[in-house]
């Protein structure tokens, strides 16, 4: 045998079930490169454990999460607030990046995604492990994301414990069952340390999601569905924005502004004009009020803006306040101060005017 033969490295060999777990992990960061639907819809018996080669390759795939987050607009030069000061640059320049940590939830979720036939919700066992770390939350978020526009997304939202991840609520409040986590510490983890960097990188992604849901409200006809959706959104935004204030990171709630900006610019209010008229008026009224969840988030920004205007040059958080004033300026130019309370008042009105705000809007367009 020659020396060359000795140096030849055999390709890593894993079991077929392990190969699918690795593919699922890779699909989280590069869904376009793999048959995600095939992985989600199919089912496969899973061995109790995975081998070291599989563990290593899953680890390699998860190492790609940060680059995947930067690709979601985190790479664009921007500004963040750190310790009351404004930091400029790309995502990795203005933040201290630490490796994402994962609990057993991540592997359990990947196994569950491969094991269960997610296209048939009735045949799916619930996952019992809960997300514990920011890394887990990112995986939960991306799992919901890769299943977008497939029936599997609903099954993942309902049966995989992702509803315990505040980050999943931030992106998918319209899908998740029950209420978002109540513990303020769970939300604080999203606005401090690594969690804050993740949310910072997802700003545009979150804005697009919220805007899409906002536009969808206008076509909803089931008031009960709208009430549930509005409650989830209201609690998510309230708890997240309170956490932002506690951490001095109101810039992380900037996606609310980005989501609303095109709607304000085109005067598109989230009025649900097609609510089922056979339902009681009390239920329809509750649904109309619930439709204003994002508007209430925007109203909170208006309130913040008034406070930021009062911060003087000599005050500690003057620099951060100036950044936040600039952030709100575009919304103010489009009449946020007037339109938001007026729309909220119309939603709560005794006899709402019908047919208002009937313009259409491109969901995929960037905010102006």
């Amino acid at each position, binding site marked *: 045998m020659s020396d060359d033969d000795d140096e030849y490295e055999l390709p890593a060999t894993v079991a077929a079930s392990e190969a699918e777990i690795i593919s699922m992990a890779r699909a989280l960061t590069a869904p376009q490169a793999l048959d995600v639907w095939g992985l989600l819809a199919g089912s496969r018996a899973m061995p109790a454990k995975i081998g070291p080669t599989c563990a290593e390759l899953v680890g390699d795939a998860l190492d790609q999460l940060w680059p995947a987050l930067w690709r979601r607009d985190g790479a664009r030069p921007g500004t963040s607030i750190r310790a009351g000061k404004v930091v400029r640059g790309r995502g990795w320049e203005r933040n201290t990046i630490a490796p994402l940590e994962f609990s057993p939830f991540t592997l359990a979720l990947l196994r569950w995604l491969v094991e269960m036939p997610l296209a048939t919700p009735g045949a799916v066992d619930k996952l019992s492990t809960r997300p514990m770390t920011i890394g887990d939350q990112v995986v939960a978020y991306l799992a919901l994301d890769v299943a977008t526009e497939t029936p599997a997304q609903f099954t993942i939202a309902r049966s995989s414990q992702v509803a315990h991840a505040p980050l999943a609520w931030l992106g998918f409040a319209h899908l998740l069952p029950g209420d978002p986590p109540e513990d303020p510490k769970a939300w604080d983890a999203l606005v401090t340390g690594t969690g804050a960097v993740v949310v910072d990188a997802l700003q545009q992604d979150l804005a697009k999601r919220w805007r899409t849901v906002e536009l969808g409200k206008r076509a909803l006809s089931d008031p009960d569905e709208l009430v549930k959706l509005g409650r989830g959104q209201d609690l998510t935004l309230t708890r997240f924005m309170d956490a932002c204030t506690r951490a001095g990171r109101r810039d992380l709630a900037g996606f609310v502004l980005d989501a609303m900006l095109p709607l304000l610019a085109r005067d598109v209010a989230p009025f649900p004009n097609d609510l089922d008229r*056979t339902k*009681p*008026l*009390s239920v329809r*009224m509750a649904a109309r009020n619930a439709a204003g969840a994002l508007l209430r988030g925007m109203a909170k920004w208006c309130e913040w803006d008034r406070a930021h205007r009062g911060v003087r040059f000599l005050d500690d958080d003057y620099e951060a306040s100036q950044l936040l004033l600039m952030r709100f300026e575009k919304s103010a130019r489009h009449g946020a101060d007037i339109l938001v309370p007026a729309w909220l*008042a119309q939603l*709560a*009105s*005794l*006899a709402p005017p019908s047919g208002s705000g009937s313009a259409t809007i491109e969901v995929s367009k960037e905010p102006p």
Partner: protein
Amino acid sequence: MSRAIQVRVSESVVRTVHVEDGVQSPLELLPVLAPERMAELLAKELEAQGFKRDGKLAKRKDPDGVEITVDLEAATVSVKLGADSRLSEQVELETRAAVEGQAQAETRLRDAAIDELEQRLAAKTEALRRGVTDKLEKKLADLRGELDASIGRATVAALTERAEQLGKIEEIASDEAGNVTIKVKL
């Protein structure tokens, strides 16, 4: 050899049902004066519209049964309409069964009759509720206009009072669009 018999069951029910629908909405009252004074001025306007003052509430029950309650402190209005109805239904079902299975057939038939009665009552109750909802919905547009007018007059009264606090009122002019101009000599 068993004999086949015809089993017939008749069930009837008479039930009094109450259905109700209602909404609550905030009132847009400008804070021209202190909240307590604004509430007083609104209460005065509402009393002129037939409302009865009951502490922090102003209430009115219209001839069509619509109950309107204005919470002056919280600045909200609640509107509700209820209806009572005595519903009666009767169901008669029959089937053929072997004589030995008469008791079981009768039990099954009775259960089916009760289910049928419940479904019919639920449908009638729902129809009654929809009637109440329709009636209430038609009323709301007028009521909104009436309340807006009362709030507008209360606001003008508040502005006048505020102007008096600032100086001597020289002229109060109003146009058809509802705009009011108060000239004050300081």
